[in-house]
């Protein structure tokens, strides 16, 4: 799996994503069910860190965030 596929899987898959948006350094995403999110797998996929707040996750991936978000949207 490439990075986008790994991140999408670690966020619980397409059906779990309400919204995903890139900013300069991170993916901002809202999920339906936070119990389906695997933070360890996000880090294994290359995330520098994960900031969770309820169903909102910020996955820190660095400046490639926009490219990764596009790749994830293509997978969805």
């Amino acid at each position: 799996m490439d990075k986008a596929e790994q991140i999408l899987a670690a966020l619980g898959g397409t059906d779990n994503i309400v919204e995903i948006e890139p900013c300069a350094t991170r993916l901002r995403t809202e999920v339906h069910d936070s119990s389906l999110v695997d933070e360890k797998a996000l880090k294994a996929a290359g995330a520098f860190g994960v900031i969770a707040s309820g169903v909102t996750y910020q996955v820190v991936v660095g400046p490639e965030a926009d490219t990764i978000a596009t790749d994830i949207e293509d997978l969805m």
Partner: protein
Amino acid sequence: MTDASPVDVLAPVSGQVIDLADVPDPVFAGAFVGPGLAVDPRRDGRTVALAPAAGRLVKLHPHAFVVQTAGGAGVLTHLGIDTVQLDGAGFELHVAEGDEVAAGAPVVTWDPAAVERDGRSPTVPVVALDAAAEALVDRHEPGPIEAAGLLFTWTR
């Protein structure tokens, strides 16, 4: 420039130098994307944010940009916190993604006071992407700095 050249990283804006740890955002404060310093910008209307180093603008958003030097050092400048939510409103770009810029070249005109009035911090983190903390030397002390003043040197 060779790969081993140190990179002088300049302040993109005038204001007060603060530690990255004091930036009101957990990702920058935790140095997740790299070490650096931040500038709390002077509020005096619309102002130009400058390129902190010479190189190619490998990423350019209205509110943030990355300059990559010939030696491969990536320096991120982020204009304010959570400013992605402004969707570019109030940010005027002077260059295009992929352009080569000189150190101190104008990149984006913006209004730190307007960002603050909208309820966001206008703090400008300047981050040495993927650098080791100890690679940054000659770090500017907390306190006033002018745009294009030396913020830190990235030894490589």
